[in-house]
């Protein structure tokens, strides 16, 4: 079974984030890392490929400057290879343009199953995976919290407002996984060493047969016009608990007439 896992390489969320004051796009300088949310998809892909008794996991990513740091992490976990689309023309791409690029790259891997996170940690638009599904003509199941594959079908427990749905879907399909769906493995030393020599196929927009005018800032049909500081909540009262902290809470509740 061929599993494609979408991996986004993002600035470390632990570091301060900023927008470019001119373009209002997220500053993506320095080393990028694999989005934590994607570690679950990579783990899921590896488990499903193993359970299917054959096949492999191919990573697909779009990132500036030929960035592979995040991909190496996923390769070290056990993915077989990666496709990286990197092209200056992609800077400023919106979610739909990104989906067009990813769909073209994913199609090259002839996947049975495409796995992505429900949304990225940095941009969190949360539409790209299902846009990819529509572009590929695939069915999709979003918000999967449990996934299994058998007889050419994927079986998913899908999160709902009320609880979850059991969903059955023929392959090929796109599935988006929530964090916590599986416990991502830590790369072993052997895995890290092996990852260095695993193939990363780097492609440009032209390689994918896409028109550069339809992607990136040139193709984006939306823009951020302003970024302002939000209204700050006024600072509240901070009390160090010395055994009577709860009394402050009770008084607060009384003021709100909640007790």
């Amino acid at each position, binding site marked *: 079974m061929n599993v494609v896992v979408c991996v986004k390489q993002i600035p470390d969320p632990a570091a301060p984030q900023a927008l470019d004051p001119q373009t209002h796009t997220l500053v993506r300088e320095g080393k990028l890392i694999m989005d934590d949310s994607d570690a679950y998809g990579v783990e899921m892909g590896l488990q499903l490929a193993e359970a299917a008794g054959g096949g492999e996991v191919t990573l697909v990513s779009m990132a500036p400057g030929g960035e592979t740091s995040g991909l190496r992490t996923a390769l070290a976990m056990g993915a077989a290879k990666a496709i990286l689309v990197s092209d200056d023309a992609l800077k400023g791409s919106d979610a739909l343009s990104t989906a067009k690029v990813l769909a073209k790259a994913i199609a090259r891997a002839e996947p049975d199953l495409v796995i992505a996170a429900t949304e990225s940690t940095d941009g969190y638009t*949360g539409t790209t995976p299902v846009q990819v599904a529509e572009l590929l003509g695939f069915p999709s199941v979003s918000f999967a919290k449990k996934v299994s594959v058998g007889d050419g079908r994927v079986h998913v427990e899908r999160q709902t407002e009320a609880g979850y749905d059991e969903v059955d879907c023929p392959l090929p*399909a796109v599935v988006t996984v929530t964090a916590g769906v599986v416990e991502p493995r830590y790369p072993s030393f052997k895995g890290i060493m092996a990852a260095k020599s695993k193939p990363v196929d780097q492609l440009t927009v032209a390689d994918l047969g896409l028109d550069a005018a339809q992607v990136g800032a040139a193709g984006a049909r939306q823009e951020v016009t302003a970024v302002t500081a939000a209204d700050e909540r006024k600072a509240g009262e901070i009390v160090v608990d010395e055994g009577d902290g709860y009394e402050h809470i009770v008084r607060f509740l009384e003021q709100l007439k909640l007790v």
Partner: protein
Amino acid sequence: MSIDKVWVLAESAEGVPTSITLELLTRARSMGAVTEAVAWGSGTAGLAGELGNYGATTVYDVGDIGDALPGAPVAGAMAELIVAGNRPDVILVPASYDGRDVAARLSVRLDAPVITNVVDVDSDGDSVSSQHGLFGGAQVATARFTGAHPWIFVVRAKSFTAEASGGAAPQVVAAPAPELGATNGAKVLARHAEERTGPKLDEADVVVSGGRGLGGAEHYAMIEELAKLLHGAAGASRAIVDAGWVPYSHQVGQTGKTVKPTLYVACGISGATQHLVGMKGSKNIIAINKDQDAPIFSVADLGIVGDVHKVVPKLIEALKAHG
């Protein structure tokens, strides 16, 4: 390109429109355009009255989609209507599990971009702009579309207050059912509802949430007990949902529910960006955390620097004694 017609994707649960549907209809109506809704399911006729009461003059009925997930059939029907010339200028879509699927598929079918995570929509004549919280809501970005209509906005719950217009029952028009092929392959085999006692998390007047500071799944019981004593709902940070201590349906935050209760009590929650986005709009916030530098204290009206295992049990005892 004036704004003459606005569509709202109307979701329903248990035979009534969801709160966010009514919020979006209220906002659509105030844009001064014709407000119409798109609904699906076997009970659309029964929903129409309430959709009209919040301003919809026409309801497009996709009809019974059986056990299919809504993404493909609803987006397909909407695209058919639009391609046939029934073109809205703006489409407001709930930021829900199904709403995001519909918006994503519709976006591709129309080759129209989507703006998501919207928390406010401003319209001024021909222009419509949307607002988005960034970095946990510390900054607000204003965005707009630069291309052709329709403009698809995916809006977070509780961005607007729902107000009935007292409008008449709308006309219900059957939407076309296009050929969907493989895209409509996902079928629901069974639906499972988690048992819930007390109010719904996103409708509760009081929300008590627990985080990593609880130390273990077994300590979540005190969060539930405190929530019950305050007639509220129990919530959770993403960290403990990911750790498997509580179901995802309890999650408050970017990837979970947005709550705006009268009182939010954060117990052992540090206040990561992901969490703040979902609860910052609460009217009053109490935070209990050992780490006095925890970001949650920056949004708290009352912050207790202390151990949740000491403060919360005492609080529970005091509330019980209070009667």
